[in-house]
């Protein structure tokens, strides 16, 4: 009798232990997911269903990065590496740097494909040049996920990014409202001829249609703060009145605003992205500059994480939509303090899933 009682008790005990064990393993993941910037993100999924046969893990993931010479790319890579480390199914993460060279990137993708990786993620230097390489890789059964910068056609497995023309329209609308529908503005683009700025500027111009906003000039600045400052000082000389600045880069408007400060001109409403340096500049100058205002739309550096998760889902045999368009964050004077990192360098892009400690390590 005693033995039977013990037996019943021990079974209950085992059940209790089992439930506790399950809760302990599941809870951190659940809590972790809750605390995730990315899971809270607004992502519009469309483009048709994509599904492939499940492949057994561990997976070898290749990432063809177009170039690595700025802090956005550095943060993007760091976020990707952190996510890969957290994903038990990822066995190998191979990152190749295209060094800004269109041809080299095509070679990079081809060599990743010949190494028979399971998935290729890529930020394309040229949306046209990488198409054949990605198509071949996709036909070989490799999961291809270009992200951030668009690729022509649809010969790839899936794509994620923001929509630059929607962003341009949103920032254009913000600027139009900030100026009360009239004023003279200058527009500053990125690398000459790039399609991201072209789409954004087109969207912004649609937002200005029908208003009294006059575009004095559109100049390219290579998305670099120093070039923006030099170009802006010339524009300041040419135009005695500049009421606003449209740009798709935060470091560009930071440089242009510094040029305004140097010339003793008032700071004005500006657009841009989630560049920390611009937020810090706004915080420093807003009390002295009544007209200074910011309407910034982020370009999330965690797009790489979304791309990796999409690739892993497909490798796992899940069905997902082909195009995941991420809704970026709008940063204005009302919420910029949530994003600004006063003790981190200017080059941090503040819509990030990386913690402050991780950021400090990257930027040192």
């Amino acid at each position, binding site marked *: 009798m005693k033995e039977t009682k013990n037996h019943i008790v021990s079974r209950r005990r085992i059940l209790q232990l089992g439930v506790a064990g399950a809760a302990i393993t599941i809870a951190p993941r659940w809590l972790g997911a809750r605390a995730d910037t990315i899971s809270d993100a607004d992502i519009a999924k469309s483009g048709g269903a994509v599904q492939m046969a499940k492949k057994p893990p561990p997976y070898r993931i290749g990432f063809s990065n177009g170039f690595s010479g700025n802090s956005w790319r550095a943060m993007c890579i760091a976020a990707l590496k952190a996510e890969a480390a957290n994903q038990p199914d990822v066995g190998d993460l191979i990152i190749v740097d295209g060094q800004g060279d269109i041809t080299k990137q095509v070679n990079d993708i081809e060599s990743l494909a010949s190494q028979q990786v399971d998935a290729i993620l890529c930020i394309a230097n040229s949306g046209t040049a990488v198409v054949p390489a990605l198509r071949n890789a996709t036909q070989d059964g490799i999961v291809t996920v270009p992200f951030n910068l668009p690729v022509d056609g649809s010969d790839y497995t899936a794509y994620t990014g923001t929509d630059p023309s929607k962003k341009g329209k949103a920032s254009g609308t913000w600027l139009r409202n900030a100026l009360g529908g009239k004023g003279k503005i200058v527009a500053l683009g990125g690398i000459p001829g790039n399609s991201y700025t072209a789409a954004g500027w087109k969207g912004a111009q649609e937002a200005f249609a029908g208003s009294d906003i006059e575009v004095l000039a559109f100049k390219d600045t290579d998305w670099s703060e*120093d070039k923006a400052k030099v170009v802006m000082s010339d524009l300041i000389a040419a135009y005695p009145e500049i009421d606003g600045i449209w740009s798709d880069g935060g470091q560009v408007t930071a440089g242009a605003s510094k040029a305004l400060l140097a010339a003793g001109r008032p700071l004005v409403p500006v657009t841009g992205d989630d560049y920390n340096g611009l937020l810090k500049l706004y915080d420093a100058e807003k009390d002295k500059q009544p007209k200074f205002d910011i309407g910034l739309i982020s370009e999330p550096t965690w797009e790489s994480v979304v791309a990796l998760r999409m690739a892993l889902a497909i490798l796992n045999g899940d069905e997902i939509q082909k195009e995941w368009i991420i809704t970026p964050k709008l940063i204005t004077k009302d919420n910029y303090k949530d994003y600004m990192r006063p003790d981190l360098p200017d080059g941090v892009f503040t819509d990030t899933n990386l913690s402050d400690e991780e950021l400090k390590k990257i930027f040192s």
Partner: protein
Amino acid sequence: MTAATALNRIGAVWFAVVALFVISGLISPAMFQFSQVLNVLQVAAFLGVLATGQTLALLIGGIDLSQAGMVTLVNIVSTSLMLGANGNIAEAVLVSLAMAALIGLLNGFVIVVLKVTPLIATLAMNSILFGAALVYTGGAPHGEAAPDFEWIGAGNLFGVPVSMIFWLAIALVVAWASRKTVYGRWLYATGANAAAARLMGVPVTAVVISAYVASAVLAAVGGLLFTAYIGAPSLGIGNQFLLTSIAAVVVGGTALTGGVGSVVATIGGTIFITELNSFTNVIRVTTGTQMVLQGAIIALSVVLYRSIARTRA
């Protein structure tokens, strides 16, 4: 080279500078504003210091394509050492200049002792310097210029840009040294005919190496001034100087073959290029048109006053 030809060379570029100033002002009256003239001179200073060093490299018959990488590396290193604190300025400046001197020595050594062509040697060094900046930062630069330091690039002294004062002071000292000292004569002799110069007792190896050291150190000084102007680190900051530092020297009248040229004329060449850049920024043309215009005008101006110099001599 006769005095008359030299005068022509110095004179011709200044005609081009004045002509460009007048034409750009007529098309865009903003270019005549005194504040814009000062703005152009302020920005020209960074290119000007680099071009002064480049002149020396070209005078001895070489070329220094590593100046762009030096500007980037100095920008990254100095801001990461300064970290926005005035107390760190001396350390940041000294480290940058020492680094530049070593790299110049290395350039000179590779070119003279290992006999690698200057174009290849300095281009490779450029790659190494940019790569070093990339490795040092991991793609994510941090740091900023100290507020007192920013004055030398972005500030004014009695209304005159401080960067311009630095530039002209350096250029005039180097110009004096190149014309009025034995060292200067050695430079020209080495560039004109290194073998003959060696037979005449000129320490050609030392002269060549010193030219590359000077070019590297001046690139670092230009990088420091530019860093002061911008105040922040940027991995692409040096790229714009790769070929414009040579264009400024060539437009001034210095020959790519060596032995002929003038540091004073390089000042004119620098002003010409910066004024042209500024003018094409101000007029409402696309970037593509801007690039075509700049290239065409530079080429045209070089052809034009080379032929003026030849007919006069």
